[in-house]
């Protein structure tokens, strides 16, 4: 049985046991109709998903993890709210929620009181549409765990929130689903951190709604093992004067596909997309982004940088859409790739679609090697060649990593970067 049929029949078996209250039947029907993305789908043209679709993955999985095991993860001990999701199960016992502000809700999206709430009803599935994409449809069919964040008007989540996703099951597909809602003038800092070992697929969807003048710092940090697959969609809806600071750090996994979209649906919005990826032996990392300017006088700024070594390969597809009404848009995009080996490949595809006439938009993509003049300059001061290379690569990556505003997270990511550049 192929994976599509297998998953559809699993849905039929599990249907009665899944948390009610969301449009699962419609989602599985959408999956049945669109299936997994085909190569001829423009959004997936450079992304070979055969390693996933040729596998035999089940959505059935168990979770057992001890406090001792979880404490090994440095992020767990940060000064932050931490939610643990293990093998696609929300672990309330190990999660640490420090927040006591009644204007802030943090918890399992699929708890009855959350899933039935008006806030969820009004937002769930409204940004990441199940009908648009097979993986999103699968997620909407099966998701049973994920984080719900609601920061009400004028409230501020004092400590950052870390969603610590740990997966160690074999031949499984987990479908976690997060929903983050910031009301007017609200503030939050949320990091999704992923650690997967063994052969499994993480199919994650995060929907984000930012109301007027709210500010979200959102990090996605992917530290997966060499057998793991990750397909993730982060879908954002921004209203007037809201600010999004998104940082995506990808350096694990056999296969990563990140889709990041923001609908810039008001004036005075800032939308920052930043990413750093490091692909080594047998790794494939694909980032697809869309800054969708629907209203006038907003600003988006994107910087994605990659280092590709051995036979690693990457895709960057960044689209800026400026709709007819979005006059006075400022939209910038840069993608840089450094190839460290002859077998490494980087596929960069910037796309500008502009339907307004009074806008400032630019994009630039570069792919090359480390600058030898810079290497010589450092060596001429007594710095050894390998140290010089490491310094330059580190500096290149840190222009992205330094944008992570959560200090402990930034320091951990920087330390990991140094380790990875030394190995």
């Amino acid at each position: 049985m192929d994976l599509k049929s297998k998953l559809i029949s699993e849905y039929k078996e599990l249907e009665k046991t899944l948390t009610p209250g969301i449009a699962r039947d419609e989602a599985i029907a959408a999956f049945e109709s669109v299936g997994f993305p085909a190569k001829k789908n423009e959004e997936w043209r450079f992304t070979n998903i055969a390693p996933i679709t040729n596998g035999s993955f089940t959505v059935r999985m168990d979770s057992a993890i001890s406090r001792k095991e979880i404490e090994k993860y440095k992020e767990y001990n940060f000064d932050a709210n931490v939610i643990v999701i293990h093998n696609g199960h929300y672990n309330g016992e190990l999660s640490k929620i420090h927040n006591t502000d009644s204007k802030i809700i943090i918890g399992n999206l699929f708890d009855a009181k959350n899933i039935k709430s008006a806030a969820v009803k009004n937002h769930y599935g409204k940004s990441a549409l199940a009908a648009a994409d097979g993986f999103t449809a699968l997620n909407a069919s099966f998701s049973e765990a994920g984080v719900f964040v609601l920061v009400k008007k004028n409230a501020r989540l004092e400590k950052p929130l870390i969603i610590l996703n740990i997966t160690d099951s074999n031949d499984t597909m987990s479908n976690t689903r997060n929903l983050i809602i910031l009301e007017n003038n609200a503030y939050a800092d949320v990091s999704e951190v992923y650690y997967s070992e063994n052969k499994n697929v993480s199919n994650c969807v995060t929907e984000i709604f930012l109301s007027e003048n709210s500010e979200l710092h959102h990090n996605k940090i992917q530290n997966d093992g060499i057998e793991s697959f990750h397909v993730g969609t982060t879908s954002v809806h921004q209203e007037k004067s809201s600010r999004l600071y998104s940082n995506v750090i990808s350096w694990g996994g056999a296969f990563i596909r990140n889709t990041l979209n923001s609908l810039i649906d008001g004036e005075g919005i800032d939308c920052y997309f930043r990413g750093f990826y490091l692909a080594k032996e047998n790794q494939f990392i694909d980032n697809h982004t869309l800054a969708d300017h629907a209203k006038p006088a907003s600003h988006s700024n994107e910087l994605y940088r990659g280092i590709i070594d051995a036979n690693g390969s990457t895709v960057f597809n960044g689209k800026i859409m400026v709709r007819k009404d979005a006059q006075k848009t400022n939209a910038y995009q840069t993608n840089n790739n450094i190839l460290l080996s002859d077998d490494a490949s980087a596929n960069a595809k910037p796309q500008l679609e502009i339907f307004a006439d009074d806008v400032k938009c630019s994009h630039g993509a570069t792919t090359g090697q480390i600058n030898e003049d810079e290497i010589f300059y450092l060596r001429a001061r007594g710095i050894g060649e390998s140290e010089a290379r490491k310094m330059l690569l580190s500096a290149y990556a840190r222009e992205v990593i330094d944008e992570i505003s959560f200090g402990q997270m930034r320091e951990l990511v920087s330390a990991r970067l140094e380790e990875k550049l030394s190995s």
Partner: protein
Amino acid sequence: MLSIKNLKAKIENKEILNGINLEVKPGEVHAIMGPNGSGKSTLASVLTGKEGYEATAGEVLYNGQNLLELSAEDRAREGIFLAFQYPVEIPGVTTTNFMKTALNEIRKSKGQDPMTAGEFLKRLKDKAALVELDPELAKRYVNVGFSGGEKKRNEIFQMAMLEPKLGILDETDSGLDIDALKIVANGVNKLRNKDNAFIVITHYQRLLDYIVPDFVHVLYKGKIVKSGTKELALQLEDEGYDWIKEEVVS
């Protein structure tokens, strides 16, 4: 200190240096002048180990060892410093971090411990004052967004930080206005002592009013065709290079 004998070198199969002879002793300042394309910068690149510059004949002894066998970083660790004609911008690396790493790599090669933070900061402050460089500039990425004059001053600042035995200044005067030129020259003069030496490569005599050389050499078509004292530089300033070219031809 430095002994160059019959040095020939090429880049991409093009002979640029055609048998250079030069002796530099501690405490001396040598000026190397010459028209464009005579090989001045190539000599600097060969001495500092830039890749792509291949010595095809002759030898270069530096304190008794074969310089040409050393890597660029080992030459720097042994006390050779090049002030670049075109200083390189290094986005993402602050001058402070650059100098700290360089100093500690040099110390490590000599089996010394890294400098303490206090020692390093003191040196940074002192040396920045020496070249009248705003110490705030050291917190910025190396040469990024610097003016031409700031870049050249940053070179001399780095030289002061690393305290080389042999400083090679490659057209440090180009692109400098007279005030910046005086500051740079003044910095070099303060660094001069009986144990170190400088090779000052320049197209114009102007810099040599401020950094007074012990010897002046004229490089033409890859060879030193005339050597003298500082008066030779004045003569070149007055009469240009044509008479040298005629002498060589005849």
